[in-house]
């Protein structure tokens, strides 16, 4: 399975996302913002960082990159896409996910190890978790406060599209403690904390982040098995 990781000018956690994909057993394929081709990848990660310096609004400029036009179409067609931190912001700016990410309420960048509760394992990126599972993943952002109007928030909850919530403290003031959401189809997930930084005992606070990457491999294997001939199992 090939997981594409996009590099925008100013992407920072792209190498880490690629490493996490590899550790999970996938082939990591680096995608360049200026190249509209997806090079046959089976899933895409929009990594963390400060694309275009995060100037104006985080993700606002990255959304117009040539690669994004292809990704937006492919995502509407079912391609699994995970946006981490800045990637989440790009997905919201691209209107693949509702709402917006705004300045942390305490106005500071915050980096800490954060507990989350997985609320919905029914997405391409979380099916290896159990509902209610508590996981420990680093959070690091300055603009991670998720906001949307009450109607949107209610709809997200009603449709089971809140994927994870902050527990034991909300690091940025996100509404309803939202840490991750998904689109209607469950193939596009945006998450503020950084699963790619919890994939190795030496460098992360846990190995919980690996679940996001193994989930998509499972989803893809399932899709291939169900769709055409049986694909390789992970």
């Amino acid at each position, binding site marked *: 399975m090939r997981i594409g990781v996009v590099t925008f*000018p*100013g992407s*920072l*956690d792209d*190498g*880490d996302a690629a*490493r996490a994909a590899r550790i999970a057993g996938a082939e990591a394929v680096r995608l360049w913002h200026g190249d509209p081709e997806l090079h046959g990848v089976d899933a895409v990660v929009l990594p*963390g*960082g*400060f694309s*275009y*310096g*995060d*100037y104006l609004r985080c993700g606002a400029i990255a959304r117009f990159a040539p690669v994004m036009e292809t990704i937006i179409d492919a995502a509407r067609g079912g391609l699994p896409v995970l946006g981490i931190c800045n990637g989440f912001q790009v997905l919201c700016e691209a209107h693949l996910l509702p709402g917006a990410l705004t300045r942390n309420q305490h106005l*500071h*960048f*915050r*980096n*800490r190890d954060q507990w989350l509760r997985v609320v919905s394992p029914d997405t391409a990126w979380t099916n290896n978790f159990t509902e209610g599972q508590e996981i420990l993943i*680093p959070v*690091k952002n*300055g603009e991670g406060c998720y906001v949307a109007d009450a109607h949107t928030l209610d709809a997200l909850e009603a449709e089971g599209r809140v994927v994870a919530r902050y527990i034991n403290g909300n690091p940025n003031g996100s509404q309803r403690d939202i840490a991750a959401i998904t689109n209607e189809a469950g193939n596009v997930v945006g998450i503020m904390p*950084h699963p*790619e*930084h919890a994939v*190795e005992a*030496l*460098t*992360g606070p846990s190995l919980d982040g690996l679940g996001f990457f193994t989930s998509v491999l499972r989803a893809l294997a399932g899709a291939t098995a169900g769709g055409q001939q049986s694909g390789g199992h992970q």
Partner: protein
Amino acid sequence: MTSQPDTATSGAAASPSEKKPTGFAATDVLINEFAGAPDTVERAYQTSTELQPHTELGLKDDEYERIRQILGRRPTASELAMYSIMWSEHCSYKSSKVHLRQFGEKTPQNTRMLAGIGENAGVVQISDELAVTFKVESHNHPSFVEPYQGAATGVGGIVRDILAMGARPIAVMDPLRFGAADHPDTARVLPGVVAGIGGYGNCLGLPNIGGEIVFDPTYQGNPLVNALSIGVLPVERLQHKEAAGVGNIVVLLGARTGRDGIGGVSVLASATFDDEAEQRRPSVQVGDPFMEKLLIESCLELYDAGLVAGIQDLGGAGLTCALTETAAAAGTGMRVWLERVPLREASMSPTEILASESQERMLLIVTPENLAPVLAVAEKWGVWATAIGEVTQSEPDGSPGRLVISWNDHIVVDVPPGSLADDGPVYARPIREPADLILLQADKAETLPRPATGDELRETVLRMAASPNLCDKTWVTEQYDRYVLGNTILAQPEDSGVLRIDERTGLGVALSVDGNGRFARLDPYEGAKLALAEAYRNVAVTGAEPVAVTDCLNFGSPEDPAVMWQFAEAVRGLADGCQLLGTPVTGGNVSFYNQTGAAAIHPTPVVGVLGVFDDVARRIPMGFTSPTGDGDLLFLLGE
């Protein structure tokens, strides 16, 4: 829009009254034009008796005389500015040079060192294939004037030093000193500095793996913002600054040049100013970490493609420093067309272009056939790259070539580059032990009251735990990304930062920075040794083998013999300590003039020690390893 200069300047008065005078507007004397044309070499010959504002630019009478001797005429306005910058304390190390020599003389021979003092940063080999480069530098004065941008550009500057050696920067650290924690101005300076370091480092994608935060009233009017960066490179990618190869092209890479910090860093960091200068502040530099990130990626791509013959970062002294140092290092000459420099403001004078401290720029020397591919890489990353000059021959008699700079067909500079870069004045400043030292030392710690009962002991422990210098630093460190790049093995609150360098082998490094101004005030010789010992221990306890040292020496005015004595003692202490431990000083930085009025800060040598791991899996964190600590045995080592 309509600006409001009167209200804007009165804002300065809103800051505390002991605010450091923030410099004269060197720009006032730098914009020197005559009927629309700049001051040219030709004109300098014709008007040899014209009075020049050398004192305003920080040059002493005899220094100015020497410049006239070197040139055989009066300098042009641009040349005068260049000498003032390059001969400033900050750039020439004129007061510290005679002392710093000890680092070379006393250093034990060391086969790991690939580049040492005098380079942009020291380079230490850590395996057959890999080397690391690291250095700590100060950005004290700019950070007091404008805490956010001052600290941010401090990080940016040290990162470019690392980049210039051919390395990919992989982490930063930030030893900081502020005034009293409860002083109102600390509430202005500290949050800005921390946000600036985080804002720049986080946006560059460099994990922050440690630092220091010390509060002491001695730093009230003069906080210390030191920044350390470390980078890694394949041994064969080591870069040099020499502008070698006659006919090679001089390329300016990165941001456009603006009126940033003209007369800023170098002059500002090289003198004390009187209060009338208060209103005429130098314009500050604003950092653009996004541009720096693009600059890093493009330089690394250029190195890997073998397209660079020489490279130098543009730091506090801008183009002036980069042009003269690259030319002087090679002994070649250089011809530069200044009107080719991409500007943010078209109206800039040649002198301003030469003195600008605009951030996020590098100077490259490339062969003519590599020019096109170099420009293509720059274009790919979206950074400006412009051929502004070429390397020229040395003189017919074999002596070094000349640096000739024109601006729209006017020759505004014609100098021997070595006279700026290497042959600046050197002073053996008078030194005298501070008069109050005997009194200070007589006031022994043994005379302090000791807790005698359990309750008193409890009270003492609580007071210590609550003191700003010992309390939890999370408020600061949480603003720094320590995870990015995925190789941080240990970071705050550990004693050292530990980084994995090679994922396959586990090869890694440990880094710690420490300093103690109070110890150094009591005894600068021992204080410097203690700072070294502390950093060395911090590295050793993580399981790494300490191999190299960098330092940032923060002191008051070198023109004060008591400060100069402190400096001399601290350098002697650090050099002796390094000799004893067998670890070389590979580079560092001197920051003088850290004082408010006549009162100098505590002498504050900050020492960074680098250690090497063959496998970071062996790192030893400071906490108990089992969650409860049950069954762990505790030992106290040493006396």
